């Protein structure tokens, strides 16, 4: 096992001894800081003093559309949940979270997982393809280490980089949130709706949960990039295809959502939040179905990478 750790150590040396990696890490931290500053100094938070009457008005409107407008079962359920949450807030005197608060900002910052995904894709795309373009693959593969182990070490190091990016995102958004907005409202709970009841939840748990949901998309796209890098030995192709699919995939799936078969496409399943706080893309899709689909896609990517990497004639 310690041998495998040494292989991961090797891959990490190759990641972090390159300038490009540190530029990406720097950009991530910079974006988090800049958006924090923008939220604090430029955006107008608006008056939130009469939030109670606002929520009451919203509820009245929602109730009306619930009765008159035609809509799907799932949409109806969603509106009812929203009404229940709003009522709970008014009853228990819990003001909605504001953007220019520590938690509000941290929740916003979870969308930057997209940037973390982007950078991790760049790393993943280079993992195997670069060894070929540098010519170092010839010396790498004549060591007493099986190709499977080499590839697994590379994949594990890519995931470690993803974890680093997420931890960095979480900690810097907490840090800059504290600097810009202070630790006020730390006790504000997050309200969620489960089994027909409104429940209070710890805010940090909620934010970590958000990170968790977004990481699924990240891991799938990174694995895809890693596979393309291994199969085609081209990092630009891997970056291009993965980013294209990451940005357009969800839209394409949305466009095609009238067809039933769309549920078998990867991007219809990467957002598991659709089952907890939204409507499933296609009627009848369940969390279990999506998890099974994700595992199938993951298995396919892993199999293709391993199979082709083991079979390949190295003749560069």
């Amino acid at each position: 096992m310690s041998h495998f750790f040494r292989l991961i150590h090797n891959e990490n040396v190759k990641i972090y001894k390159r300038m490009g990696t540190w530029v990406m890490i720097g950009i991530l931290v910079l974006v988090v800081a800049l958006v924090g500053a923008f939220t604090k100094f430029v955006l107008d938070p608006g008056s939130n003093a009469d939030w109670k009457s606002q929520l009451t008005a919203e509820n009245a409107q929602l109730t009306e559309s619930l009765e008159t407008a035609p809509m799907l079962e799932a949409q109806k359920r969603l509106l009812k949940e929203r009404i229940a949450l709003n009522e709970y807030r008014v009853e228990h005197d819990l003001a909605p979270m504001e953007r220019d608060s520590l938690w509000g900002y941290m929740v916003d910052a979870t969308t930057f997982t997209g940037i973390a995904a982007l950078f991790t894709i760049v790393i993943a795309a280079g993992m195997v393809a670069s060894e070929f373009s540098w010519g170092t693959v010839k010396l790498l593969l004549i060591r007493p280490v099986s190709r499977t182990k080499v590839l697994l070490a590379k994949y594990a190091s890519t995931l470690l980089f993803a974890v680093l990016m997420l931890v960095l995102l979480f900690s810097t958004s907490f840090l800059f949130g504290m600097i810009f907005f202070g630790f006020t409202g730390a006790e504000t709970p997050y309200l969620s709706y489960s089994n027909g009841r409104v429940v209070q939840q710890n805010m940090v748990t909620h934010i970590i949960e958000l990170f968790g949901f977004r990481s699924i998309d990240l891991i799938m796209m990174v694995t895809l990039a890693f596979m393309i890098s291994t199969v085609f030995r081209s990092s630009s192709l891997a970056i291009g295809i993965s980013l294209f699919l990451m940005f357009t995939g969800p839209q394409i799936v949305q466009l095609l959502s009238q067809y039933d078969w769309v549920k078998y496409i990867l991007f219809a399943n990467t957002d598991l939040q659709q089952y907890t706080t939204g409507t499933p893309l296609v009627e009848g899709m369940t969390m279990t179905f999506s998890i099974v689909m994700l595992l199938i896609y993951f298995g396919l990517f892993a199999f293709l990478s391993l199979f082709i990497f083991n079979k390949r004639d190295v003749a560069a």
Partner: protein
Amino acid sequence: MKKPIVEIKNLKKVIGDKTIIHGISMDVFPGEVFGFLGPNGAGKTTTIRMMVGLMGITEGEVLINGFSIEKNFEKAISHVGGIIENPEMYKFLSGYDNLLQYARMLPDPVKKERIDEIVKLVGLEKRIHEKVKGYSLGMRQRLGLAQALLHSPALLILDEPTNGLDPAGIREIRTYIRKIAHEEGIAVFVSSHMLSEMQLMCDRIGIIQDGHLVSVETVGDFVGEKVNTVLEIEPIEKAREFVEQTFPELNPKVNGAKLFVSASREKVPSLVKVLAENEFEIYQVSSENSTLEEKFLEMTEGTK
């Protein structure tokens, strides 16, 4: 007879519907420098890539120290150090960090002292902590050699090791290769298309042509015995007939104004004496070793 470190048995490689290597068999023994010679495109690099597991084997097998490179890769390759074509290194790392990369991949990591020892051996100690980016080709070759020797392999495979080196560098590498083979009993497998170089470096030579192994001989057999003697003599046609009758084994031939005979060194005085006694006018007698180059061209042209 020593046990061979490498056994290549009827090795074949087919890519698509083209056969690149047509069933090569040869053995390499500990303590010898084996030259693998052939023109560009003959299949040297393909054979080497199959020997180190970079390419799949279509048919036949390669055994290193008794272990199949295909079925028992990790065991077989642990005895091998190699440079395959140019020694390409991680340019953003220092020479030392590059060596550490390969040290970490071994099942039992080599000690720091061993790395320092190897660095000294290849003469890179002054610049080993600089990034490889700034290395000259010669320095990269040395680093490549260091990387190949790190784990004290029983077999060293070098693909065109003197490529891009200056004459002093070539000599140094040659001396070093002969030294480790003969003193430490390492088998060295060297490929090259530089004939003169191989003649000086190798103990045995295998010639590959269009994917066929044309011959395997010791350098002595290859070069030594056969001596061409060139005579400037008149009348030339008569002289040829005379030699043909008196010494038919010398196989005399006329080429231009010169008579070529395959006489060994010891034979030359008696030949000259007899010719002089028979009133032939001899202007010049010279003898030359048939070099590997001639032999090589002779062989490879013969098969075409």
